[in-house]
């Protein structure tokens, strides 16, 4: 087993070093692109050192405080830190890249026992920052207790810390195996990812609905609110809390400082839960090893002749690119998330506002409707950025096919721009129509002005997105909705800046007309004028961008 782990360690080390030393960059621009992409992880790695020291000190302070009986805020911080690590462990496998089945197949072919493979995979979870940062905390607590002369409690805290770590590592392994098992069937995987996309915003607002949210309580003091009888949801949370591993760890460490007997039950709970999770993770991993490849074939739905139409203003070739961009987006979880997540924004925001009493719902507050629509429109364009700032990645090998077709770079870029506009257009239209229906008091010209502002913003953003896609290409996994499907960090940063610059003129014109001139009726007219100018600017900007993308074709083909 030792030899196997040494081999694993060496392999990972070489992969890391090779990725830094042998980038395969062809020119200075590509070297710059690769360097900026690696900058983020390197900074994160460097930041881990002071973070670990700070967390170790926090752990020691907490442990010492418990040992001396001076209950400190430090242990409360540790409590919530461990709870956060637990939550991140659960969502980590969804937002991180999916496990490469190819590497699993290679491992199965080697003479390595399954248990060794499992331990290797499970220990690999320590590379997740939220897990590695748990280590200095639990070590610090044990040392802090020992410094406070509570040696038995220190041992108990150390045992509880090890059990907690085994639990989170087992949970990571279990969750990633389950995600792998779910995703190996493409159809099922797509459905799972879509459900996750829909669930995440609902989970984010759930506390708003579970906890006290009566409008009357908003005016109460903290003491008055504390005196209120607990709701059913709060009762359930209180009942479950002791069995949550982070809470069991806290109870074990704190209990051991007063009496080792008090620590016995939480420590046993933690050990049992850790063992159960490890057993489940091993069973799930064995199933992954039994069948690591993708299953089933997928038939695609037909949209009749819709896809074969020529979009007015585009050539047939550019229309084909536009519809292909939309079709590919609809067939990837990340693409679907781009469309689905902004759709939820106005609904979630309206629900929160209604719950908070800030919006008489249904009402006739025109400003609220416009605000909601602006937010939805911005969310639609922003949700598109990960796709549009790396717009050739969605084609994968199809990018080369486009290069082989009688298709000019200009047609390719216009097709991509219109395809991306269609992707963002679906949620944007919904985000305009829904508030327009809910707030009928607002003048139609204002809604039109808003739609034109969205158009002007996108028109200016499109050439920038094309240029950034060529400058910062990145191979992505669009089956994931997390970081691995995001655009290059450099592109994301500059893309966000481009969005702000593109949106600013519309915002400024609206402010000038309504606040400075006090003539809000001028807003749609001014924005109409600006949208014409923006379209002209976009057309002109595409000329150098076409040349730039043409000069980067070879580099792009290497990535996809």
């Amino acid at each position: 087993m030792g030899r196997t782990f040494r081999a694993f360690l060496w392999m990972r080390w070489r992969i890391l070093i090779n990725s830094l030393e042998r980038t395969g960059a062809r020119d200075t621009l590509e070297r710059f692109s690769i360097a900026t992409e690696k900058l983020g992880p390197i900074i994160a790695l460097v930041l881990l050192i002071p973070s670990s020291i700070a967390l170790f000190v926090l752990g020691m302070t907490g442990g010492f405080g418990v040992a001396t009986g001076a209950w400190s805020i430090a242990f409360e911080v540790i409590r919530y830190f461990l709870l956060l690590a637990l939550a991140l462990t659960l969502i980590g496998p969804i937002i991180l890249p999916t496990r490469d089945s190819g590497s699993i197949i290679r491992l199965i072919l080697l003479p390595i026992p399954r248990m060794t493979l499992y331990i290797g995979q499970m220990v690999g979870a320590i590379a997740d920052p939220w897990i590695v940062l748990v280590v200095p905390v639990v070590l610090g607590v044990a040392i802090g207790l020992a410094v406070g002369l509570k040696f038995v409690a220190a041992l108990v805290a150390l045992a509880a810390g090890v059990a907690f770590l085994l639990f989170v590592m087992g949970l990571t392994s279990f969750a990633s195996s389950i995600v792998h098992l779910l995703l190996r069937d493409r159809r099922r995987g797509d459905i799972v990812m879509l459900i996750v996309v829909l669930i995440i915003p609902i989970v984010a607002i759930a506390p708003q609905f579970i906890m006290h949210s009566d409008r009357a309580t908003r005016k109460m003091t903290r003491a008055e609110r504390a005196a209120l009888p607990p709701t059913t949801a709060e009762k359930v949370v209180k009942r479950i809390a002791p069995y949550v591993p982070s809470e069991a760890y806290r109870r074990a460490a704190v209990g051991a400082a007063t009496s080792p007997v008090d620590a016995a039950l939480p420590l046993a709970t933690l050990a049992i839960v850790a063992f159960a999770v490890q057993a489940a993770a091993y069973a799930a991993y064995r199933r992954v090893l039994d069948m690591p490849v993708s299953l089933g074939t997928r038939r695609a739905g037909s949209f009749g002749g819709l896809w074969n139409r020529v979009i007015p203003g585009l050539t047939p070739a550019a229309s084909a690119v536009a519809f292909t961009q939309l079709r590919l987006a609809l067939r990837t979880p990340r693409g679907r998330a781009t469309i689905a997540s902004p759709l939820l924004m106005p609904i979630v925001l309206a629900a929160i506002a209604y719950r908070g009493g800030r919006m008489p719902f249904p009402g006739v507050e025109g400003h609220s409707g416009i605000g909601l629509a602006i937010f939805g429109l911005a969310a639609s364009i922003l949700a598109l950025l990960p796709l549009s700032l790396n717009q050739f990645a969605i084609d994968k090998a199809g990018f080369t096919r486009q290069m082989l077709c009688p298709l000019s770079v200009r047609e390719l870029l216009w097709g991509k721009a219109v395809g991306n506009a269609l992707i963002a257009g679906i949620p944007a239209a919904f985000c305009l129509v829904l508030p327009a229906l809910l707030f009928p008091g607002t003048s139609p010209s204002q809604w039109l002005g808003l739609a034109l502002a969205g158009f002007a913003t996108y028109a200016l953003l499109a050439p920038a997105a094309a240029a950034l896609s060529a400058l910062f290409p990145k191979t992505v996994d669009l089956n994931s909705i997390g970081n691995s499907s995001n655009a290059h960090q450099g592109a994301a940063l500059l893309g966000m800046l481009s969005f702000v610059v593109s949106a600013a003129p519309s915002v400024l014109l609206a402010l000038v007309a309504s606040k400075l001139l006090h003539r809000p009726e001028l807003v749609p007219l001014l924005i109409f004028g600006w949208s014409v100018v923006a379209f002209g600017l976009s057309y002109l900007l595409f000329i150098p961008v076409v040349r730039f993308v043409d000069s980067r074709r070879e580099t792009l083909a290497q990535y996809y």
Partner: protein
Amino acid sequence: MEFAVETRGLSRTFGSKRAVDGIDLKVPAGSFYGFLGPNGAGKSTTIKCLTGLLRPSSGEMRILGLDPLVDPVEIKRRVGVVPEDLALFDRLTALETLSFIGQVHGMPGETFAARSTDLLSLMDLTGAATTLVADFSHGMRKKLSLAAALLPAPRLLFLDEPFEGIDAVASRQIKELLHSFVGRGGTVFLTSHILEIVERLSTHIGVIADGRLVAQGRIEDVRAGALGKGTLEELFIQLVGGERPAADLNWL
């Protein structure tokens, strides 16, 4: 003689490596040209230069009488390519892939329907027409890539290892199809490691080694010039200098 592909001093370098080193290709129109070479000799780089995927570092090219650097789109209208990596959209179906090619070529709907039906049937892909390419086997992908290359009825076909991974039945049908394509005046530029196929199909060959063209011409002429007689395999090994003593792995 009219040439479908003609290059002069075609070179391509990657950093300090000269992958293609000043080759002068002459592919007669209406010929079946087998382009041979050992792994890493520069075959795929040459095809990529000829099909516009790579810009040559130096040299001149004429494809069907046109300059690819001046008329790239016009050349692509007349040329079909099965590239090394097949270049297919993973999340399109077989039919959608062909539909994309048809649309980009501005093909009328009826023409597309008739040709795609014929090609899918020929490649035995009719049952998989609405299956995503991501779910295809390697052989099915290769057949689809070939169908995509044939759909616009090109005058010149660049095929990079077209028979690798294709079953015997489809392979035979494709060979017959390519034969009749050449018989009707089309030109095929093919690379393959299967020398028997090249020997059986080709009228002309070119052999590349270390980026340099070491032989070119009618297959009989090249064979006669180099060996007098012998198989293509013997000719190939002699030309690329691949005669090495067999390794004696007595530990095996």
